[in-house]
């Protein structure tokens, strides 16, 4: 792969990542959100693959494959299953911050991410690190989704969005943090999603829905 091609592919993947993050914020249908999330997983896998191709490292190829399996395959599948189980209310109810404001916030968060990431870029300027702000922005947007979305499932997506962002940063900066840690992280993420999915089921059993506003029993007021 030529350097220019590498850089363009890299930027394309990153662009898709950011775009999908914004779309997740934009759309309300949970099914669409899950699909977009799967797309983001694919973009992430592509990013890994591009890096692997650029470095010519077998280990990275394996990682890319793992990412593709987990983020574009297993996780979206788990999410979809949870959505199907719920059967009802496939739409995000009115979020705490409305969509227009959310998009503005996403813009602001992206600016913040760029500002914050300056030293990251400065440490080792390269096409890859130039794209680090995208990862940071995805993390922040993920956190924003967690804070503002009312469905259990959309919070789950928010968490995974953060995770995708972090993985992006990992790849763009150092091509991963070592296999054992990497696998450990994946395992944890997977388990968290499983746990949350089970909890969603229980929540539906206990509350009859997955609206997080119902979760107000434990409080001091």
């Amino acid at each position: 792969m030529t350097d220019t091609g590498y850089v363009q592919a890299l930027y394309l993947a990153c662009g898709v990542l950011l775009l999908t993050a914004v779309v997740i914020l934009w759309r309300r249908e949970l099914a669409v959100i899950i699909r977009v999330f799967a797309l983001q997983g694919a973009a992430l896998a592509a990013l890994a693959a591009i890096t692997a191709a650029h470095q010519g490292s077998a280990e990275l190829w394996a990682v890319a494959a793992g990412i593709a399996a987990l983020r574009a395959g297993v996780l979206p599948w788990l999410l979809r299953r949870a959505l199907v189980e719920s059967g009802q209310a496939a739409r995000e109810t009115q979020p705490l911050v409305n969509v227009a404001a959310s998009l503005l916030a996403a813009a602001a968060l992206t600016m913040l991410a760029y500002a914050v990431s300056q030293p990251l870029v400065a440490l080792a300027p390269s096409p890859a690190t130039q794209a680090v702000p995208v990862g940071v922005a995805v993390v922040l947007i993920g956190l924003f989704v967690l804070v503002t979305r009312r469905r259990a499932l959309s919070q789950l997506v928010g968490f995974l969005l953060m995770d995708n962002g972090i993985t992006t940063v990992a790849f763009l900066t150092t091509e991963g943090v070592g296999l054992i840690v990497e696998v450990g992280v994946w395992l944890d993420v997977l388990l968290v999603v499983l746990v949350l999915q089970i909890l969603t089921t229980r929540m539906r059993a206990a509350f009859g829905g997955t609206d997080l506003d119902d979760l107000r029993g434990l409080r001091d007021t």
Partner: protein
Amino acid sequence: MTELLITAPIALPVVAAAVYAAVGWRRTTAWVSAGSAALVLAAAITLALDTMRGGPGEAVGGLLRVDALSAFMLIVIGAVGLLAAVATPDYLRGEMLTGAASMRTATRHSVLVQLFLAAMALAVLAANLGVLWVAIEATTVVTAFLVGQRRTRAAVEAAWKYVVICSAGIALALLGVILLNYAAAHTAGHPGLDLALLALSAADLDPDVTRMATALLLVGFGTKAGLVPLHAWLPDAHGQAPAPVSALMSGVLLSVAFYAILRVKLIADAALGTGFARALLVAMALASLLLAASLLLAQRDYKRMLAYSSIEHMGLVALGAAIGSRLALAAVLLHVLGHGLAKAVLFLGAGRMLQVTGTSSIAGVRGLAAHQPVLSGCVGFGVLALIGLPPFSLFASELGIARAGFASSLGWATAAAFLLVLIIAAALVGHTSRMLLGGPAVDGPGAATSPRPLPVSMGAALIGGLLGAAVLGVTAGPLAELLSHATSILTGSTP
């Protein structure tokens, strides 16, 4: 031999979990968990002796490493784990009596608790920051179902909040880990994420990246340590979890997360000077104390009260870490152990109170001392220990933190912190005395229950924990040397 000893604290609980998974929880296996916790404690003590004699040891190809600090944390895990394990059979029996648990629940409980112990042991033994992160996140996963064990609405709610907030917080820590890794990759030493190597070559780390990494790591691990701003899972989870799990979570898990902060701070201080981490920690400490005070003053639920008190103590520990002198850090470690013991006793006692009175509301419990004298005594003394009265070791450690604080440039922060501690103490005493003191209630929930004597092994756990905290407050004995070694690691000096 050392290799085996280092892996033992992780392997033993896993084996015990396997036993439970295979055989299930029954009369014969009820004490397996206690045995495993006791063995963990024994291994921890042996490791502590080893490290004091022969310095740090490694295992599993350098993934695990034990030094005085890890050994000390292992002792905390073992001791509190033992307390919780001893009280668990009686607690589970009590739950089964009220129908809140079945044999299956008990089995799952035991498996998960053992995995929980293993994860925590892994966290303190990890030589690699990434592994440490994985272990800490793993504790979230295993405890999620423990928190939700009762399957009531409240339990599910607590579990959800617990997992979501902790995962989100800890994800920030992961970002921090990655940034640190990035910074480390651009130093001469290429230390990767190995804690010891990172500390050694910290001076070469890029300050700007490290600063960002430190901030993310502190906030992220602070989530699991119950520090503001992402503290809010704590009262819900501790309030809903079964008593032995609350004891473990409050007594050890928070400290294990704080252990990670201590490790990070060591690196950050070397890279950035002490100012940055100190400022962050002081801010988090004071905010945590302020929050704990605000919510304790008019608290209505005694399990939540204990949970907020944990936030308070983590705040104090953070303050101690921020001060960062030898005395302060020794006091921090002693505080971690003392708080672990006292808080475990209190959560176990609170669980028993819940079983006896059927309510966790402070207003619902009156004159408990009249019909549950031993339990009330333990809870009462536990609270006294918690507010830092001698002879319990929290007195010595709080005094140490205060002394170190006034000797450092953080005098005003220390003063503010201890004023908040005073307010918290007032609130705790107020709530507790309302529950315990007074004549036997003529009517109301307290009178309706028939007096049930405290089961022997639970009583032993409660009294044992208090005695441990008290003995520790009178003299640290051989622990003093271990503390000194651990403090040296944290200050980067030789003992």
